[in-house]
């Protein structure tokens, strides 16, 4: 019962917001989609759509203080790959995660069944959504390498890390602290890295792509897809994040949302500086999306 009321409220909300801002994002056909060059002429030439952004205040935990007002969206495709350039103002570059540090993030969301449109906030039971999520910390992993304990605390000391294959004893100037997270995770040391041992996608130490493809059927159901065929790249300059997210238009992965017919797209933004995380995010609800042929 509660859920039905909740979905109804979300639908009214969607309707209101849609009436206010009718936008159709048209993905323009170009020769190729630059995956990482945010300032490539093909991106500069594309039409820019301004999508209004709102603080998530529907379910706990909510975002109390919003810090992003709108998102500039561009989309191009080359017949095989579709790309989205997402741009928003953020005066701080937050690409580190720690006990008290949060990173900037952005995500796009596509419905699996645009005809029976699920709620815009992470979908709903049997109304599955496909999400592609870029994270500042993952961008840092790929660009600058995994931030190990030694990188965060250059002067720290560890006597031993149990079960490390090579126990740094000072030979060749190598000590326990010099054992990398990646090396540690490959041997028995993984017993002491519970999330890595459990195969958690958060605990990957040699990441190649700063994007995560997920699916969801409502709050708290976000699940990493088995096949990852999206890409992402983010650059922060002039107090602005510019993030490119791409994926195949026709995907062999059955968990990827269809794109050939007109569909919808939604967005979410997290500002790490203000400790945005989980539901403490900004969102834009469903917007029309057409991939031009």
């Amino acid at each position, binding site marked *: 019962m509660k859920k039905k009321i909740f979905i109804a409220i979300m639908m009214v909300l969607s309707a209101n917001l849609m009436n206010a801002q009718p936008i159709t994002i048209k993905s323009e056909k170009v020769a190729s989609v630059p995956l990482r060059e945010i300032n490539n002429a093909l991106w500069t030439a594309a039409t820019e759509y301004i999508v209004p952004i709102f603080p998530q205040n529907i379910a*706990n935990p909510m975002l109390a203080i919003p810090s992003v007002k709108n998102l500039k969206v561009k989309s191009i495709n080359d017949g095989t790959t579709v790309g989205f350039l997402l741009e928003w103002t953020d005066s701080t570059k937050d690409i580190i995660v720690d*006990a008290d540090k949060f990173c900037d993030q952005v995500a796009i969301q596509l419905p699996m069944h645009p005809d029976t449109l699920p709620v815009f906030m992470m979908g709903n039971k049997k109304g599955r959504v496909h999400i592609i999520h870029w994270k500042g910390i993952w961008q840092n992993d790929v660009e600058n390498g995994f931030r190990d304990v030694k990188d965060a605390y250059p002067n720290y000391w560890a006597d031993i890390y149990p079960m490390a294959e090579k126990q740094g004893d000072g030979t060749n100037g190598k000590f326990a602290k010099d*054992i990398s997270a990646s090396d540690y995770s490959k041997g028995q040391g993984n017993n002491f*890295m519970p*999330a890595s041992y459990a*195969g958690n996608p958060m*605990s990957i130490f040699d990441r190649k792509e700063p994007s995560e493809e997920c699916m969801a059927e409502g709050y708290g159901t976000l699940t990493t897809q088995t096949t990852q065929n999206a890409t992402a790249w983010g650059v922060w300059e002039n107090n602005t994040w510019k993030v490119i997210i791409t994926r195949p238009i026709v995907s062999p992965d059955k968990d990827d949302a269809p794109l050939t017919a007109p569909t919808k797209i939604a967005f979410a933004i997290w500002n790490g500086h203000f400790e945005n995380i989980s539901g403490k995010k900004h969102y834009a609800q469903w917007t029309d999306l057409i991939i031009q042929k």
Partner: protein
Amino acid sequence: MATVKNWQLKKDMKYPYEENRPNKQIAYIFDTNKCIACQTCTVACKTTWTSGKGEETMFFNNVETKPYGGYPLKWDLNTLKMMGEQSWDKVTGAYKGKTIFDDTKGENVNGWRPAERDYAFPNMGEDECSSNVNKGAFFSGIHDTWMFYLARICNHCTFPGCAAACPRKAIYKRPEDGIVLIDESRCRGYKECVKACPYKKTFFNMVTRTSEKCIGCYPLIEQGEQPRCVQTCIGKIRLQGFLSKPGEAKADNPIDQIVHIKKIALPLYPQYGTEPNVYYIPPIHVPTDFLHQMFGPGVDKAVAAYKNLKNDPDLLAAFLLFGNTPKITHHYKREGDFTVSYNEAGEVLAKVPMTEPVYVRPYDDKDHGTFRHNTP
């Protein structure tokens, strides 16, 4: 928000989920009067569970010196300050104030998140007294300055703040023993639990980028053994067992006898509302105002009962089980001059004499032709 019954507060309170008590509830009793802060428990836990990368400053078990110590820094003061002044009903002993689940405004739990540095001083305030000992006071007997050691682990709360705050429901309470666990395959490192746990007993791992917490040594519990930190306790201050649901206490369960029946061991900061399941025997030499804030209104009676322990053989028999068997005592019985511990199947685990025999050895050992004296 649902309404649940919190027996420690003697009242109904708000909680995001329906009341769902486990079939068995893991519980611990810590006697603060006996702890010597040797940190054997801390090291036993650390070497067993948290000596990997990213766990450098993580202590599922820590022992801090009160009044000034605290790990992470100011873990208790910050929550007390956040909640403001609250009160207990002096007549009924019911809690009249707010819990961390009240007036939460856009969150499920009111909390605060420690900074990275707050984990850097696990022995802050160690061995420091409440005030300076005046010259001469040491020699003239009891003085009014005080300190005590507070051993802390996760409380495997009946209404866990950590689980209430996790938007992914990646934290769960096991129905078979009430142990609260983080599903390490589903946690995404949102740190909502770190913020919500009023005891700051969930920790963020900067390498795996997920949160971790005390696992109640569940692999041991499943084999009928007490946790590492309990088995290794040098001061024999700890006892782990299972606490019956309120109103179902059994006199032959030592945990029930001590917590529910004699009410001599009390929850830590019960006013937070999570119904924590580590029960403390308050330090008997500490000013009661301080203890009321920390352990609630049951303090005076608990201290009096503790002082009277030698005249209460059933209670004393339960106390003698501390540190005398690695296994979990489900029942105990006073049999003549012994207290006997039994496991779930009714097998004897240990037999402990109620009074230890005393041998007085002569100062002058004629057999060996030597004198015995204490050599420091």
